Structure formats: C-alpha cells, structure tokens
C-alpha cells in the first residue's frame, strides 16, 4: 500500500503526479474464501478490514453488485452522532463515534471527520420533553448531549430563525458537540484500500444471485454473476436489498425497504457552521467542505427499490429549511436522489447470526446507518469471526422480535433518524 503523508504528496508533486497507483486491486474472484461479504458499502468493507486486521481472517472477498460505496454509503447526508436513548443503542453508536475520532489515522486515509456539532431542534412541548429525556439518559451513559435555549441555539448556529411566529417555532435544541460529519465516499475508499492491503479481494460488478446451502442446511457459498464462489461463511451487508439476498437462503426478516431522499444545493462560501436536524419537520442540513448545502428529507410512505422518491417529500423538507434558515430561500438545488433504506419495526439494526449456520446479517439501519459504520463493521467482524456476537451487538439479534425485547428507538425518537 502506498502510504499517504505530506512527504508522499510532495514527492509525487515533484514527480508530476505520475507515480500514484490505484488504491486497490480489481481481482478475479477465487474459487473459495473463508468469508464472503455481500455488499461493498462502508459497513461491508469495514467488516472485511476488521476481519483481516483484528481476527487474522484474510481469505475474504467483498462482492458488490454495482461499484463500491455506490449504495447508501454514497447517498446519505453524512451525519454522525450517538445521542440515542436506550443503553444498547448508546453503547453501539458511541462505540462508532469513538472509532470515528481515530479513523483517518487508523486507515491512513482522510475521512474528513469533522466534529462540528449536531444540533437537534425542538418545536413542540413533546419535543422538549423527549429531548430533555435524551439529554439525561445520554449523560447517564457517558454520551455528551446538552440542552440549549433558543437563544443559545442561535448563538451556536447564527443562520437559525428563532422567531416565535414560525409555523414550527424553535423552542430549544439538544446539542451533541462530538457529533458532526465525515466524507462518505472516503469512508468506503479508506476501508477498501486498507482491506485490500491486508489481502481482501474486492469484486465489483458481480451480483449475488443465490446462496447455496448444504444438505445439513449450512451455507456452502454464493452463486454470482461470475459463477459459484465457495465460502465457509457468508456475511450479508446489503442495506435496502437485504430482504432480497436473505430470501435466497429462504429467510424472511422483519424489514421493509423505503426510498429516502437527499438534495444538495449549488456550492457557496462557508456559511453554515454545524449540523442541524429537525425531526419534527423532517429537515436535516449541513454544509459540505465543497460548499454545497447537504439536505436530507424524510422517507416515502411506500416500499420501493427505485432509488428515487416523491417530489412532495423533498418539497416538505425545503419548506422547513426555508423557514428555519431564511437566508437559503434563494439557493438553487443542484441534485436530488434517493437511496433504499431497510427499516426494522423498532428502528434499530440487526447485527446477528441467522438460523442458517454460517450465514450472518448486518441490516436494518434504516435512515441512520452511516454514523455507525466503524462500530457496526467492528462488532460484525467479531460476530462473523467468533460465531458469536460482540457484547455490544448481542442485543441487536433477530430473536428480539420473537422475544419482545425491542430496542425501540422508533418510539424514542418518534421519527426517522
């Protein structure tokens, strides 16, 4: 692996940038692997990296239908936070947040993690009660989160309109200062590069078309567009397509896939200092380092795999953005796209073994998987390598739905997150 450093940059600059090489190989798939990971997004590539680095399992392939990082990894609004209500969620997301803080150094790849603060707006009395409950629960779990008055919120984010005559006035806010954003593509690329350097094969443009099982029910391998690949273990990290892949093994999961939209504006000078989320009016906004406003909308109502959503959903979000941030009213939006998010009934992920021996699944991240990428990949690699969950993801089993031990962030947040 070519290591990145100021010196390497200087050396290559002097050499006219002729010496840079591709950051990962494009290998033909081998006949057999110890672990085949289905899906080369951040979570899948990260899983491969931690399998190789922490568990010594290097005979690993990551198989991707499209191009790596081209699914929800490249489509989300890059918000990172860990201020979830329940102990189980706080442990999982805070594990991830702590890993984000050292990720660029770990991967020798700048993921541009920027802890600029995530501020969540409260617009109703119910919001205030819920957010204050979050703040107190988070403090008890060692997760930073603090309550701000409307005036303090405006001080933290000057473009914010705190006029009391708004349709949804700002009555306060919860601020997680350690939260922020990261460059989504760089996360996929950084993990791909680091995993590749440890011997992991990343096979792109190779759809998985079937999961082959032996007579005893255990996984034997995957059928792909490039033929059968034998595998001792198969780990599915296919986000919105998880139901489709798991159906190949005869499994039905508590998942539904919905389109979730995002938009970016034309790039402008730095004008927006933090991340602001308003769950009540479905508006999520930050400014990228390129200068674009990155705006997230809510999900569409219906199941779809079309990777686009209804215009009225995006318009609803823009209505809220224009009211909360009047200075953006004349901004032009450049692009609008959708990703397909797999949601569980309790809006918490599933990171678990399955009833099929040798088959593992990491799914159900719904509208908020990006923030968890390093932590999710880390505990999932542990689950696959040891055939038993890590302490942190043990509660995120499939059986929790049977046993009624939900981690009900849906009720806790009352909205998409």
């Amino acid at each position, binding site marked *: 692996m070519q290591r990145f450093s100021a010196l390497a940059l200087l050396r290559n600059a002097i050499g006219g940038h002729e010496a840079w090489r591709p950051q990962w190989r494009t290998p033909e798939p081998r006949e057999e692997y110890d672990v085949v990971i289905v899906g080369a997004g951040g979570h899948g590539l990260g899983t491969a990296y931690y399998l190789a680095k922490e568990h010594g399992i290097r005979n690993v392939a990551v198989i991707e239908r499209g191009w790596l990082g081209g699914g929800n990894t490249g489509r989300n609004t890059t918000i990172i936070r860990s201020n979830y209500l329940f102990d189980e969620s706080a442990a999982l997301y805070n594990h991830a947040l702590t890993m984000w803080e050292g990720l660029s150094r770990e991967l020798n790849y700048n993921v541009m993690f920027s802890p600029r603060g995530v501020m969540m707006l409260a617009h109703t009395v119910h919001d205030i009660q819920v957010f204050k409950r979050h703040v107190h629960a988070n403090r008890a779990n060692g997760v930073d989160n603090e309550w701000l008055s409307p005036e303090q919120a405006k001080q933290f984010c000057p473009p914010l309109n705190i006029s009391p005559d708004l349709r949804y006035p700002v009555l306060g806010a919860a601020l997680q200062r350690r939260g922020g954003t990261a460059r989504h593509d760089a996360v996929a690329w950084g993990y791909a590069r680091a995993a590749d350097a440890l011997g992991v094969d990343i096979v792109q443009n190779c759809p998985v078309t079937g999961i082959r099982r032996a007579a005893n029910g255990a996984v034997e391998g995957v059928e792909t567009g490039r033929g059968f690949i034998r595998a001792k273990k198969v780990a599915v990290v296919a986000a919105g*397509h998880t139901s*489709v892949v798991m159906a190949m093994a005869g499994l039905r999961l*508590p998942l*539904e896939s919905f389109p979730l939209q995002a938009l970016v504006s034309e790039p402008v000078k730095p004008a927006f200092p933090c991340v602001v989320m308003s769950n009540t009016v479905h508006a999520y906004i930050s400014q990228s380092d390129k200068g674009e406003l990155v705006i997230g909308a809510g999900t569409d109502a*219906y199941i779809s*795999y*079309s990777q686009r959503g209804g215009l*009225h959903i995006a318009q609803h979000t823009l209505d809220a953005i224009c009211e909360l941030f009047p200075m953006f009213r004349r901004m032009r939006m450049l692009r609008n796209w959708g990703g397909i998010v797999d949601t569980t009934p309790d809006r918490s992920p599933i990171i678990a073994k399955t009833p099929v021996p040798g088959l593992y699944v990491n799914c159900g991240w719904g509208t908020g998987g990006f923030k968890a990428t390093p932590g999710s990949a880390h505990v999932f690699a542990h689950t696959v390598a040891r055939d038993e969950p890590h302490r942190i993801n043990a509660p995120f089993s499939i059986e929790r*739905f*049977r046993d009624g031990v939900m981690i009900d962030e849906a009720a806790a947040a009352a909205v998409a997150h």
Partner: protein
Amino acid sequence: MLLIPCPHCGDRPEIEFSYGGEAHVARPADPAALSDEQWADFLYARTNPKGVFAERWRHTNGCGRFFNVVRDTISDFFVAGHKDGEPRA
C-alpha cells in the same frame, strides 16, 4: 409522486392517500395456538420484494376506502388493482 389508481375514484395523486403496507397479511384465526416464532412472523416479518408487490392503500382524502393494488417496486408502476374484498387481480 405516484398516481395511484383508486378502484372507486380513478387515478389520484399520492398525497390523497395513506399507505397500508403489504396486502394479504391475514390475522391468524387462532392467535393463542401460534408459537412465538409464528406470532413474530405474523407481526413483523414481511416479504419486501424487489418486483411485483401487492399492497394496500387508503384513499384518506377521497372516498376514504381501503383497496389493494399490485405495483412493481423497481419501476413504481402499478400493474393491477382491485376493491377490498374482491378476488385478487
């Protein structure tokens, strides 16, 4: 935005409707007889197919009635529809 074929009123814009999820998820006749696995499967497991999908909608801001349609979840085009209680299309 979808243009949804309400079998009672005709094609109407999506904002007039509320979503009812997967169709033909019948409540078990004798819930007490079910195992925990079967009950969880009824409550939570869904087909979530990529392709042809039978789903329910309610024309909330129209006739107010539930109905079933079949939609392709790749293209979002409606394939067929029928009134509630009528045989499947």
